[in-house]
């Protein structure tokens, strides 16, 4: 017969102070863990664009990102020699999209505009861009080619001020051309959602540029993207080409580094939580030696006692975990759920939205169960080895 759960549940509350203090330690660690897992999930979401293996980004050789690349039309036109590029089913034109990337400093909503972020502005030709960037889906109309209009990625719209429908954003080299926001777009959670898109010729004119920044290219479904990349990097064209996955993987280097640092810190703190739980459980076992001896006497086996005490610690940890998740939710709700970081070399910002999904909460709680069990293992072992007779005889 196993010890009834209610026995442990009540025991958790026998020492309210100690229990509360332990729960709070666990809660603090879990709260942080929830935030980090949420951030990691947002980062993974950004990299989900990697699933589209047939999109290739072409930049000028020697440059490190779209932001520092300049691709004059003459260079861009060389891309027409590339074989294996998908074609538009109606017009038969190859799906190569010329693009220009610039940036505009927009105030962050998070700190009420005290600081600004460099938001990428991408000039595209709608006829080609949407066929190449298949993950981009419009919510509302697209910008008109004849007017100064832009569409905004949903993440940018959430995090930066002045991007509501109908707002006018000043762009152009002298910041003197007003572009009106007419619609939003999504990109499967990818980095493009942090951008602003407008009509390529209009934006090139506004920034007095005569070169594109980059090109995006769709590889035909039955062709090997690697072969296409080799052609573009080969002697005839001499440009740099990367699959979109590789490109963003590189740009997210800083973000990954940041995550590694934070995760390391939380790991260190969870060891502290394990120790704290162990301490509490040792004390619980020591204080209940006679009680345990009694249980042994009336027929509970060692295994049951061991499992029982581990269970008690897990209960304790789960209480802390639940509180921690609650704290994390409250923090995200009331303090802020957004974070943005610069790409490694693009000089434009990537916005992330941190969410504590049920899945993440479940992972955090699973971690907490592990922490509780680890902390309780040795004390529970000690409890299981209590010598009934001598313990009962003791004062």
């Amino acid at each position: 017969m196993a010890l009834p759960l209610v026995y442990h549940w009540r025991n958790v509350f026998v020492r309210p102070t100690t229990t509360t203090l332990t729960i709070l330690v666990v809660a603090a660690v879990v709260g942080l863990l929830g935030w980090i897992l949420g951030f990691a999930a947002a980062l993974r979401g950004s990299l989900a664009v990697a699933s589209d293996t047939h999109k290739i980004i072409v930049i000028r050789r020697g440059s490190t990102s779209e932001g520092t690349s300049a691709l004059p039309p003459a260079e861009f036109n060389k891309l027409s020699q590339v074989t294996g590029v998908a074609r538009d089913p109606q017009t038969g034109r190859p799906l190569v999209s010329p693009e220009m990337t610039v940036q505009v400093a927009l105030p962050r909503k998070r700190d009420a505009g005290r600081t600004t972020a460099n938001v990428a502005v991408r000039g595209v030709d709608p006829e080609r861009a949407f066929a190449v960037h298949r993950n981009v889906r419009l919510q509302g109309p697209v910008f008109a080619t004849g007017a100064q209009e832009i569409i905004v990625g949903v993440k940018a719209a959430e995090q930066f001020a002045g991007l509501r429908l109908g707002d006018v954003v000043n762009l152009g080299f002298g910041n003197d051309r007003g572009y009106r926001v007419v619609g939003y777009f999504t990109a499967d959670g990818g980095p493009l959602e942090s951008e602003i898109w407008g009509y390529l010729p209009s934006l090139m004119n506004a920034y007095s540029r005569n070169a594109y920044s980059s090109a995006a290219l769709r590889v035909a479904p039955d062709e090997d993207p690697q072969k296409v990349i080799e052609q573009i990097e080969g002697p005839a064209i001499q440009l740099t080409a990367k699959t979109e996955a590789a490109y963003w993987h590189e740009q997210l280097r800083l973000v990954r580094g940041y995550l590694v640092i934070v995760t390391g810190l939380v790991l260190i703190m969870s060891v502290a939580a394990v120790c704290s739980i162990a301490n509490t459980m040792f004390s619980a076992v020591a204080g209940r030696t006679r009680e345990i001896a009694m249980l042994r006497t009336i027929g509970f086996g060692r295994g049951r006692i061991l499992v029982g005490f581990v269970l008690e610690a897990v209960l304790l940890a789960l209480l802390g975990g639940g509180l921690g998740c609650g704290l994390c939710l409250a923090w995200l709700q009331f303090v802020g759920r957004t974070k943005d970081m610069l790409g490694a070399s693009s000089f434009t910002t990537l916005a992330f939205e941190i969410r504590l999904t049920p899945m993440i909460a479940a992972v955090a709680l699973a971690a907490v169960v592990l922490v509780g069990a680890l902390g309780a293992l040795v004390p529970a072992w000690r409890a299981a080895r209590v010598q009934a007779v001598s313990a009962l005889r003791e004062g």
Partner: protein
Amino acid sequence: MTLSYVLLQNLRRNRLRTGLTAVAFALPMAVFVLALSLVVGFVKTSAALEQELRLGVHHRVSLTNFLPDGHRRKIEELDPQRTRLRAVCGMRWFGGRVPGTQQTLQSLAADADTLPIVYSDIGLTEAEITEWQRERRAAIVAGGVARQYGWKVGDRVVLESTIPPYRQLEFRLIRIWDESPFPMTFYFRRDYLLDAFEREGQVGTGCSIFWVKCVDAAALRSLQQEIDALFANTPDETRSEDENAFVAGFVQAVGDLPSLAQAMATVVVIIVALVAGNTMMMSFRERIRELAVFKALGFSARRVFLIVLSESVLLALLGSALGILPIVAGLTLIPPDHLRWGAFSPPELSWLAVLGSLSIGLIVGIAAGFWPAWQALRLRTTDALRRVA
């Protein structure tokens, strides 16, 4: 029976608990001292930069837009008597990297005549200034870059630019700037860049930023207003900010480590306070009768209070030391270049951070021990002796 004897005996009685508490205390404290080192490093850098009284003037729209070279003269004319500004140094982003590597250095082409004045913190000697002005290919690099690539004064080095028109240029190092707050800095002469561009028919004019060295803080504030007003409603409007504000923008953009460090430090203090408090509550509860015996033997209430409180403090200090020592050792032994975050200074071992962590440990120890100690002070001997633990 001295106090220290009682303390030691008490800590040794439940070695397991002392050990677990010390570890639970030490690990977060290690995080704390690291976070504090980082923050102290940033604060020191920013205090140093404030001393330099440099005002950065860049294009209002974006740092990637160049300002015309003529802005320098117009800024200088704001104060022809030089009562408020010392000198103006125009800089153009080169974005160079060592061929074959991926890391972009903070390489900037700077006005040769004013760099030694505006960046007096480089501390160029007379001989070095003469060399800087004579040698067109002269370059000054921060210690971080020099160590990473194994460069020495006198070396010839090649950088290729990662921005249009992607030129390769050769430089000769005349000075390694070891104390640079930004370890990836690389300065060279702007007239050299201009010549190189013009020889190939490329446009090399335009500056990313003008650094204005001011006489004092009041002059900096007034110039900041006047410069932005001067260029308002022109095609090239400016935004002026002091060097700290300029750097803060980047710090925020690459992940805002200082705020992360502050948040971590707060959580850590909470955790260690809870851990220590927990232990002290447990030890106290188990030892109520013993403390009552002390009192019955004639120990004064004050002394019993001190025994409980100092045990907590001792444990907290032990835990802190255990956490701080490995970090101190690590930061001393690992070359700081390995701990660098982007182009910013690595966390720096500072006695301020160590002292700060120890005092936090001390405060936590006192706070955690105070309640049990207070209860011990008010303990009624007869009640406690009668109580069954």
